[in-house]
């Protein structure tokens, strides 16, 4: 499986949040046996040791009139040779063959526009475009140019699928699809609504929507984002798959409009409420914590055969004003409850792995896990207690609730430990998604 990936940031060349996410996705895919060619506007002459990165400012543009469209990328390369140009030489895709007509029909106006832009850009055969590759004043022009380069790349590169990260690369992704006929996945890390609220830039919005409409599949980084894509962009939810990246807690708190009482903290345990998960130890420990500190709430999220017993026991302890049950949660509710939480507790009696502990870290929450969970083997820096040691569990909760610095350190160390695993996890899901499309 080979993927041609379009991004705007990639470490070490330029790396904001998007770059970090793209790096994670790429590493995860590579670890799952996918070959990735990552395209960014410019590398500034530097290299990335373990990922094949191409700068758009290194790709010579092809001329539009010369090369008929061919679906098969291997054939395309051959064709390039036949007409006497190497893959580095000037070639240009042309929209007149049968295959390409389908794509023109698919969006004739766009195809026409593309040709015009490409023609304008490609005044000179084999010319190289310059990219600042930042988010400066020439951004829209560079986005267009990047798209023109994508056309050439779609012709020159050999790949099975196209993957584009956020709106800035969507024109590139769609053009590469038009040229190659390969399926397109667009990856939404943030929408214009996230960035600008109701004062969004309509031009950006249009590009986003155009990318989403022409994609074969959309990856959203959260259910929140998926909800925006369906509601604001009118995209069929079936076309969208949620694959989580690392999530910024502050952002989530903002997104879900979470307001907390001054200094009040929330402790979460999420999962099936069954004997194996040790919900009773969580409840008893919560009761002990409440005897020491008042400004805290506990949430037991999930459903299971022990739920009635837990509700009844909580009632017996008379802590209904501090201990809450949500029942089974899904999608945005899960994101919201994580966003509300300051500490995650997984007191499993026996747990082959314990994915929710991972999830909590993904959501940037410190965790306490039982020594009896499989995940404790990986998370050597996590705070661990024996599931049966309710007093210790309570003491540990208090320590983490009262010492923010300690809590932050726990999160950061654990996140470092699981970095690879969470990348691989996301990479695996994306690979599956590719396989369904190819």
């Amino acid at each position: 499986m080979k993927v041609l990936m379009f991004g705007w940031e990639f470490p070490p060349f330029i790396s904001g949040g998007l770059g970090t996410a793209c790096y994670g996705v790429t590493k995860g895919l590579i670890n799952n046996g996918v070959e990735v060619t990552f395209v960014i506007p410019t590398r500034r002459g530097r290299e990335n040791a373990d990922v094949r990165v191409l700068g758009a400012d290194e790709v010579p543009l092809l001329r539009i009139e010369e090369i008929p469209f061919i679906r098969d990328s291997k054939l395309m390369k051959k064709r390039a040779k036949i007409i006497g140009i190497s893959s580095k030489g000037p070639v240009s895709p042309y929209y007149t063959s049968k295959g390409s007509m389908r794509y023109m029909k698919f969006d004739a106006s766009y195809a026409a526009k593309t040709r015009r832009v490409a023609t304008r850009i490609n005044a000179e055969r084999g010319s190289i475009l310059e990219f600042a590759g930042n988010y400066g004043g020439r951004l829209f022009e560079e986005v267009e140019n990047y798209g023109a380069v994508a056309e050439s790349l779609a012709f020159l590169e050999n790949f099975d699928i196209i993957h584009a990260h956020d709106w800035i690369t969507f024109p590139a992704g769609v053009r590469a699809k038009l040229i190659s006929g390969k399926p397109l996945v667009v990856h939404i890390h943030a929408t214009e609504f996230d960035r600008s609220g109701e004062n969004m830039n309509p031009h950006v919005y249009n590009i986003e929507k155009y990318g989403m409409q022409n994609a074969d599949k959309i990856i959203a980084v959260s259910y929140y984002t998926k909800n925006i894509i369906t509601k604001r962009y009118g995209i069929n939810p079936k076309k969208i798959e949620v694959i989580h990246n690392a999530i910024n807690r502050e952002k989530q708190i903002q997104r879900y409009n979470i307001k907390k009482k001054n200094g009040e903290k929330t402790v979460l345990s999420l999962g099936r409420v069954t004997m194996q998960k040790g919900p009773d130890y969580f409840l008893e420990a919560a009761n002990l914590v409440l005897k020491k500190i008042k400004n805290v709430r506990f949430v037991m999220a999930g459903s299971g055969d022990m739920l009635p017993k837990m509700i009844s026991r909580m009632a017996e302890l008379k802590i209904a004003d501090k201990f809450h049950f949500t029942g089974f949660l899904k999608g945005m509710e899960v994101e919201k409850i994580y966003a509300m939480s300051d500490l995650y507790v997984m007191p499993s009696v026996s747990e082959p792995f314990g994915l929710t502990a991972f999830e909590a870290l993904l959501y940037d929450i410190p965790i306490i896990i039982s020594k009896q969970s499989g995940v404790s083997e990986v998370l050597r820096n996590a705070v661990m207690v024996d599931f049966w040691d309710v007093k210790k569990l309570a003491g540990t909760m208090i320590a983490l609730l009262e010492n923010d610095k300690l809590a932050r350190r726990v999160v950061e160390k654990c996140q470092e430990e699981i970095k690879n695993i969470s990348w691989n996890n996301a990479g695996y899901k994306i690979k599956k998604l590719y396989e369904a499309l190819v």
Partner: protein
Amino acid sequence: MVSVCFYFQVHQPFRLRKDYSFFDIGANHFYEDEDANREVCNKVSRKCYLPTNQAMLELIQKHKGKFKISYSVTGVVLEQFERYNPEVLESFKRLAETGCVEFINETYYHSLSFIYSKPEFKKQVIKHRQKIKELFGQTPKTFRNTELIYNNDLAKFIEDMGYKTILAEGADQVLGWRSPNFLYQPAGCYKLNLLMKNYKLSDDIAFRFSNRGWNEWPLTADKFARWVHGMSGNGEILNLFMDYETFGEHQWEDTGIFAFLKALPEKVLKHRDFQFITPGEVSNYYTPVAKINVPYFVSWADIERDLTAWIGNPMQNSAIEMAYAMEKEVMASKNQELIDVWRKLLTSDHFYYICTKWFSDGDVHKYFNPYETPFDAYVVYTNILNDLKLTIEQLIHQQ
């Protein structure tokens, strides 16, 4: 002279939104399931309140003052009539105008407040009294507590509030060998009359009327009147207490319950020693034959006739204690709207839904329970209390 004393309970709670979740706490202050409340009120009005009130009015007119009845209509159902079915309210007013109908006092919110807060109890009783005066032009002299929950202390409290008569369940554990068919006096009281429900004959109508497995089925007015007349010589007053919804709602129209009701007064009055009276009139005819000592609470619910339908399991206790623990703060807010919201949450039905008794009474509980399980009911209830608590804390903080 032997008297038959009918008293009917009219009540509908303000049901809560079943989907009120943890996420609503602090964000959503609308607790009532308005759709469900409107629907139930419409349905029961159509099936029971309107046709039964009409039947009662016709019976009173037909018997020219000889047929008398009494009602306890809770404040919360009156509010719902005002909101959804004003025509029901009008028909009760017409009944009040006949002079043959007594309106009994209870707690406005059909609450268990006597057990948890005497000051709150008193406020709710007075609020209900004022509501009755305002709507029906009567000042009640008779009191019945929610679900006929009763003990000596309650009787004393009620006597001190100036009432003449109080109603209670004629439970076996209270009466022992004695018959409910006499006028009694609560232990510790000197003026208050005590009427005790004849649960055998009351439940023959309320619960067994349509039961085809019952060896007395079908129950006709003739047969029932014969049983009533059988009291002659060994009783003075027959107290038939039941939910008003018996007519048309619990016993559907096609069971013949309306025909039974319409025929009964005539059959009873055929015997010249029998008459109908209301609870407020008992002292005109009888004096108490003995004092009844009820140190522990009794009620008319379930086979235990105790409080376990509303309190006893840990969830019920937690819920009700949490609710009453808020009284001071709620009152301190001086916000009438919030006080009303809180009081509606004290209605006993909310705790009834959290009952976990699943033996022979389980069926009845299930019939009246909008929730799938008592655990759901508890979680919703405490979520709502938590929201109210936050709201009040914020309000007090602002002040």
